[in-house]
């Protein structure tokens, strides 16, 4: 009988050890599942980490030969529009930007700057000649600007407050009403200026 009790004690040790390690492995598995379940996945690109931060610098020669510098626009709202002459939503939103710029250039409280994404100066000149629009348009060496703003696909539009802080990002075509509603909301409720 004494020998049998010894056998039971010996066989019980490893099984208890295995039990503890099974629990430990289970806990590790639960942690990994929790990490995966709470991660943002690919949807993170819909938001911009630039919002509430100083707008990245934009400076360079526009297609009309003038020099544009975003810093010189301090004191008024700036609509930074990334576009391409061949993208359909960009073509569709263009009249909205024209209407917005025509109205606000008179008052002087807002400006528009367009930055061509992977396009040519010639295409941009032809596009504006055909579709209207009288504001600074950058077309050469613009990749660095697009990347610094986190552009994934055009059209994308950023609204920069008179203080130089990025307040909003619009993905897809933007409208005059969208821009004015956002400026009104930020000017009125939060006093952004």
């Amino acid at each position: 009988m004494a020998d049998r009790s010894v056998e039971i004690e010996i066989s019980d040790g490893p099984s208890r050890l295995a039990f503890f390690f099974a629990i430990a492995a289970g806990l590790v598995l639960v942690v990994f599942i929790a990490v995966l379940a709470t991660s943002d996945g690919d949807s993170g690109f819909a938001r911009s980490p630039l919002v509430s931060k100083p707008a990245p610098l934009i400076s360079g020669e526009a297609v009309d030969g003038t020099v544009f510098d975003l810093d010189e626009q301090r004191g008024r709202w700036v609509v930074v529009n990334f576009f391409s002459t061949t993208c359909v939503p960009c073509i569709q939103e263009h009249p909205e930007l024209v209407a917005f710029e025509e109205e606000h250039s008179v008052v002087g409280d807002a400006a528009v700057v367009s930055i061509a994404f992977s396009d040519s100066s010639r295409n941009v000149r032809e596009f504006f000649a055909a579709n209207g629009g009288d504001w600074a348009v950058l077309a050469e060496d613009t990749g660095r600007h697009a990347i610094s703003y986190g552009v994934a696909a055009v059209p994308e539009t950023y609204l920069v407050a008179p203080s130089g802080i990025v307040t909003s990002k619009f993905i897809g075509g933007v409208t005059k009403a969208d821009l004015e509603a956002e400026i009104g909301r930020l000017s009125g409720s939060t006093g952004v200026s």
Partner: protein
Amino acid sequence: MFSRRSLVWLCLLAAALSALAVSTQLEGPPRTNEDRVRSLSEDFACPTCDGQSVAESNAVVAEEIRREIRRQVDEGQTDRQITDALVASYDESIDLRPRSGGVVGLIWIVPVVVMVFGFGALASVFRRWRLTEAQSASAEDVELVRSLREDRPT
């Protein structure tokens, strides 16, 4: 303080941990700018693609990011500066490498913890096996077997 066997196990554990630590440091920075651009491009996700890196994708934005990485490398920016700039623009989801901080940092810690526990488990099991051998060779067992053999009819 430690038995000789324990010291052997501790040395084995220290050697394994040292090898792990050294292996993470062995991959120095690539030598040429071209190597650095290729290496960095593989570390970032294409923002408009599904599961492709900037290096793999032919999307316009991937080409622009590669060009921007090339420009920054040529300007003398470090890998960390280039990574920080892209993360600042696109957020952390563009960085395919697991970050060292936060919950994601567990990816680095868990394997080490599991390895330490693994060594502990092996040491524990080997120790039990040794105890088992000692108990199974008792004089009573030997006597019992001997008497049974003597009683067995031939």
